[in-house]
Every structure is written in C-alpha cells, then in structure tokens.
C-alpha cells in the first residue's frame, strides 16, 4: 500500500486515573478499549485507526493513536469518561502530535 493510501495518524498523550490513582496496565487497557468501543462502536473503531500505543502504570500516562481527521472526536471521547465501575475515573488528553517522539 502506498503511504498516501494509509491512515493519516495522530498520537494523543493522556493521563489516566481511577479513584485518583493510576490503574495497572491490564485494567487501563480494558478501560480505554471498552470506553472507546462504547463511544464509537465497532464500525467507528475500524475507521478510527485506534490503538493504545503505550501506557506507564507508574505515572498513569500513555499514548494512543487515532486517525488525523477524527482527533477532536477522540479527545471528546476521552473527556466523556467520568466513572468506571462506580469509581471516579478521568482520561485527560495532554497533547497531540504526528509523531510519538514529539509528544
């Protein structure tokens, strides 16, 4: 596939907290995946080029990938997370970039 035919990607760095603490990697992965799936649906996720690229369980900070034209939707989706299984949760977007290095 030509580079021009691929998804144009954007990387969003975020900070995740569950009851004020950063959750462990498996739980963080479940929170992000389930929340995005519930917000976008299966079809939406397929066109979003979504991927949880990196997550640090110590700091609660991570990076996720999305399609360039849908960055605002992805940020809105992240902002819509307010609780997880009854506990207060927050998925706060930090910065957006076209490369992981510049985040």
């Amino acid at each position, binding site marked *: 596939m030509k580079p021009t035919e691929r998804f144009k990607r954007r990387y969003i760095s975020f900070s995740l907290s569950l009851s004020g603490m950063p959750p462990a990697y498996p739980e963080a992965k479940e929170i992000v995946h389930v929340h995005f799936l*519930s917000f976008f649906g299966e079809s939406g996720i397929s066109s979003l080029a979504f991927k949880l690229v990196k997550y640090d369980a110590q700091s609660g900070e991570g990076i996720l990938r999305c399609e360039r034209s849908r*960055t*605002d*939707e992805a*940020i*809105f989706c*992240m*902002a*819509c997370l*307010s609780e997880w299984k009854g506990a*207060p949760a*927050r998925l*706060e*977007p930090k910065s957006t970039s076209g490369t992981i290095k510049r985040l």
Partner: protein
Amino acid sequence: MPDIVRFEPTGKDGAGRALPASSLPNFFEAANALAARQFCRKKGAIVHPSGYDVDDGDLLELARAGGAIAFSFSDVLSERGFRRSILISKMRLLLSACRKRGTPFVFVTLAKDASQARGARELSAFATVLGATDVERKAAEKKMSGIADGSARQKKGTPPDAAKAVEK
C-alpha cells in the same frame, strides 16, 4: 478559555478561569421551552436550555437581545449510552438552528465539582463534535471572554462605559 461552573472555584482545583454561574446575573437555566421563551427576551441573557429544545422564534429574539445559548458538557457527562447519543443529537440540531438564526452560542462545562471540570482543548473538541466550524468556535471563545470581562468589571463595581474610558 473561560468557563462557567456551578461551584465556587478555589484556584487549586484546576478551574482557575472558571466563573461560578451564581455570580452571573444574566445566566438562566431553562427547564423547558416555555421557560426558555421568557429568558430569551431578556437583554444579554445566557440561556442554558436543559432539554435543548428552543423555538426558532425565541432564538431570533435572543439574537436581537444580544444573548447566547450555552451548551453544557456536564449534561453529556450525566447521561449514558443511548440517552447520551440522543442528547448530543439534540445539541447538534440546536447548534444548527442557532447558526440559521444568527444566535451566538458558548461552550461551557457547568461542572458541579472539580471532577467534572474540563480543559480548553476538551471544550474545543466538544464544539467540533457538535458541528461548530473553526470560525464559530473562535466566536464562542470571544463571547465567553466578553462575559468573563463583564463579570470582572461588575465585581470591581466599574460600569462598562467607564472601564472603556480607562482603557483608552
């Protein structure tokens, strides 16, 4: 971007530029379309219709009176699943109606506590998702800045004209 919240921000909670709704005399929360109609006639009113159903005629009156419609992020947070999608759809329709009638609009969180407060980037994404263009988003930010400046002037007890004279 200045924001309107429902609690008293302390500055430590990350809501430094937020204005408490109780401090704004022109801010009205309309429970239904009938209540919204009354508030739309008031000069410079900022109307938050909780059901997001406002008649086109009322939007025209609000535009004439120099007011604005407030879209609240906390309304989205308080709903789940299908009901959330219906609410976003209603917001999109109201924004489209505002555009058609030339009514200004602002994007606020109306957070009940610090956990519901959101940043400028998130509010900007909220505006884009509702269908606001870049120009409309910037106009909404300008309108909010105007509201914040007006509120600051009122706190100091300076009438708007006198403040302009001082600036010159």
